[in-house]
C-alpha cells in the first residue's frame, strides 16, 4: 500500500463520563466517580482501508466509534478529517462531516424507527441532504435496495417485517444513501446468526470495493475482524495497546494482552485445545483504571516499571505500533 494522507486522524482522544453522585455519596463525602472511557486514543485511518477495532466490552471501542460519528463530544484531543479539525468546523461543515462519516449500529431491532417504512427512511435521508431532486428519489431508492440486495417490494414494508440480517441491510442502505466516504460499523453483525453474518460481511466487503469506502469495523469477534480488516487496533481500557497490519498482528501479536485475547478466541479445530485459561482476572472497571500500564495486574510479564509508568504507543517495526515496556524483550524471547 502506498502512503496516502489519512482520511481520519485521531489524536490523544479523551472522554470521561462523570457518574451522578447520589445524596448518600455526598453525605459520605465519597469522591465523584468517573468512567474513564477513552484515555488518550491516537490513530489514523487511511482512505480505502478497513481498520478493525477489537477489545472486550467496556474497553471503549464503541465510545470511540460514537466519538467519530459525533454522537459524543470528546473532552480532550482532536479528530481531523482530510486534515481539517472537526471540532473547529461551523454548522454547515459539520453537517457535511456527518454526511461523509456514517455509522451503523449493533442492534438491528432498535436502529430503525419502527413506524417508518424503508421508503420513508431512505427518502428522508435523500431529502435532508439534497442528494437527488425529488423526482429521482424513487429511482435512487430502487438502486439502493439493489445495492444491498433487498427485493424491490421491501421499500414499502415496516421494519418489523424483516429479519435481523435484512434490517442490517436496510441500515447499510440508509448509510449509503447519503454517499458517505467513511462507514463506522459498530458491531454490525454481532447480533446475527453465523450464516447470516457471512452474508452481511460479504456485502460489506463488496460495497467497500465498489464504492471505495473507508471502514472502521468495531467488533469483539476476532475472526471477523481479522477477515475484513487491513489493519487492526487492539483497545484495552480506553487506550490502544497495539495497532498494525492485520495479518501480522494476528499471526504474531506483540502485546501480551493481544496475545491473550487471540488465545482466548475459541478455534474451530478441536485438536488445538488449550487446557489452561489464556489469561487470569477480569477487565478492571473503567471507574478506576490502574496506574501505569492498565494491563499490569493481569500481565504475566509485568515488572515494577509497568506499575508506575504508562507505556507509550511506539513503532516496533514498519508494520505496527505497540504500547508495552517489554515489547522488544518479549519479541526476542
Amino acid at each position, binding site marked *: 500500500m502506498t502512503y496516502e494522507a489519512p482520511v481520519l486522524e485521531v489524536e490523544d482522544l479523551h472522554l470521561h463520563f462523570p457518574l451522578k453522585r447520589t445524596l448518600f455519596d455526598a453525605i459520605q463525602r465519597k469522591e465523584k466517580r468517573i468512567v474513564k472511557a477513552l484515555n488518550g486514543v491516537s490513530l489514523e485511518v487511511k482512505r480505502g482501508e478497513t481498520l478493525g477495532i477489537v477489545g472486550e466490552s467496556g474497553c471503549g471501542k464503541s465510545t470511540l466509534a460514537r466519538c467519530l460519528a459525533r454522537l459524543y463530544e470528546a473532552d480532550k484531543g482532536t479528530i481531523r478529517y482530510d486534515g481539517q479539525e472537526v471540532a473547529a468546523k461551523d454548522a454547515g461543515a459539520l453537517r457535511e462531516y456527518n454526511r461523509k462519516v456514517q*455509522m451503523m*449500529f*449493533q*442492534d438491528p431491532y432498535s*436502529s430503525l*424507527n419502527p413506524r417508518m417504512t424503508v421508503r420513508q427512511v431512505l427518502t428522508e*435521508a435523500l431529502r435532508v441532504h439534497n442528494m437527488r431532486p425529488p423526482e429521482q428519489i424513487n429511482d435512487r431508492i430502487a438502486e439502493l435496495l439493489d445495492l444491498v440486495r433487498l427485493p424491490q417490494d421491501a421499500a414499502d414494508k415496516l421494519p418489523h417485517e424483516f429479519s435481523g440480517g435484512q434490517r442490517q441491510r436496510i441500515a447499510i442502505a*440508509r448509510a449509503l444513501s447519503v454517499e458517505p466516504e467513511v462507514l463506522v460499523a459498530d458491531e454490525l453483525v454481532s447480533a446475527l446468526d453465523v450464516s447470516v453474518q457471512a452474508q452481511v460481511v460479504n456485502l460489506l466487503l463488496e460495497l467497500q470495493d465498489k464504492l471505495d469506502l473507508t471502514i472502521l469495523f468495531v467488533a469483539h469477534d476476532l475472526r471477523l475482524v481479522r477477515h475484513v480488516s487491513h489493519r487492526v487496533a487492539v483497545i484495552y481500557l480506553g487506550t490502544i495497546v497495539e495497532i498494525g497490519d492485520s495479518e501480522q498482528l494476528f499471526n504474531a501479536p506483540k502485546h501480551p494482552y493481544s496475545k491473550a485475547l487471540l488465545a482466548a478466541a475459541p478455534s474451530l479445530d478441536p485438536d488445538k485445545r488449550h487446557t489452561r485459561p489464556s489469561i487470569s482476572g477480569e477487565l478492571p472497571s473503567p471507574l478506576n483504571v490502574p496506574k501505569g500500564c492498565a494491563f499490569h495486574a493481569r500481565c504475566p510479564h509485568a515488572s515494577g516499571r509497568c506499575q508506575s509508568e504508562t507505556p507509550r504507543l511506539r513503532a516496533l517495526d514498519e508494520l505496527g505500533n505497540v504500547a508495552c515496556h517489554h515489547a522488544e524483550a518479549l519479541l526476542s524471547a
Partner: protein
Amino acid sequence: MTQLDTLQASTPQKKKLHPRVKALLRPGFLLGFFILSSSILLAVFPWAFAPYDPNAFDFNAIQKSPSWAHPFGTDNLGRDTLSRVIWAYQVDMQIAFFATFFAMVIGVVVGSLVAYHGGIADVLFGRLVDVTITFPFLVLVIAVVAVLGPGLTNMYVAVTLVQWVYYARLTRAEIMTQMTSDYASAGRVMGYSSTRIIFRHLLPNATTPLITYWMTDMALAILLGSSLGYLGLGAQPPQAEWGVLIAEGRNFITTAWWMSLMPGIAIVVTGLGFSLVGDSLADVLRPRGAS
C-alpha cells in the same frame, strides 16, 4: 428465550392488520366507542335529543319523580332533569377537551425538548415537577381559580397551568426511553436537525402512552370540572353542567334524589367511555412487532 421471540415475531406476518382489527372488535372498545360517540352527538346536537327546554320553568311539575313524561324527573323549579343532563353534555365534553388539550400540547413540547436537550433546563424542569406533584392537584387548581376568579375560561387556564407539568413529565420519560434506541442516534449520525429527530422520530413512537393518558385525563377533567362546578368555581348556574346539577340537587337529596343521581350517572358513564377507549387505543397504536 430467543426461540419464543422468533415464534412470536413470525406469527403476525401472515395475517395483515389482524391484531389491530381484533383490538378494535373487543367488547370493551365497542362499548366505549358507543358511549363516546353518543356523548359527542349529545354535546353537538343537544336540542335534537332534549325533550324540553333545559331552562324552562314548569311550576306545575316541581320535583316530579321519574315518569314517562320526565324520565329523569324534574327539579325544584320544574325543569326537566333529562334535558338539563343532555344540555350539560355540551359543557362537560367541552371541559373534557379544553381542560386537557392545551396542557397536552404544552406538556408534549416542553417534555420533548427537556428530554432531548437535557442540561440546566432539564434540572429546572425536574424541580418544577417536584414542586407540582407535592401539592394535591385539586388544591393547586382551586388556588389558581381563586386568584383568577370563577368561570369556565379561568378554569381552563388554571387546569392547563397545572396539568401541563404532568404531560411534560410523561413525555419526558417516554422520550428518554425512546432515546436509548439506536434509531435516535442514527438520526443524529445522518445529520438530521434536533427538531426533526424529536418531532418526526421520537415523538411518534412515544404517543401510545400519551394518548392513553389523555383519554383518562379527559375523564378526570370531567370529574374536575364537575367538582369545580359543584363548588361554584367552574360553570355558573343557571348553565346546565353536571357538577352544578349535582350541587343544585344537594339540598333535596332525600326528597328528590334523581336531581343529583342522574347527572352523577352521566359522569360515571362518560368517564367509563373515555377509559374503555383509551385502554383499547393503547393496543391499536402500539407499533407492530413491538412487545
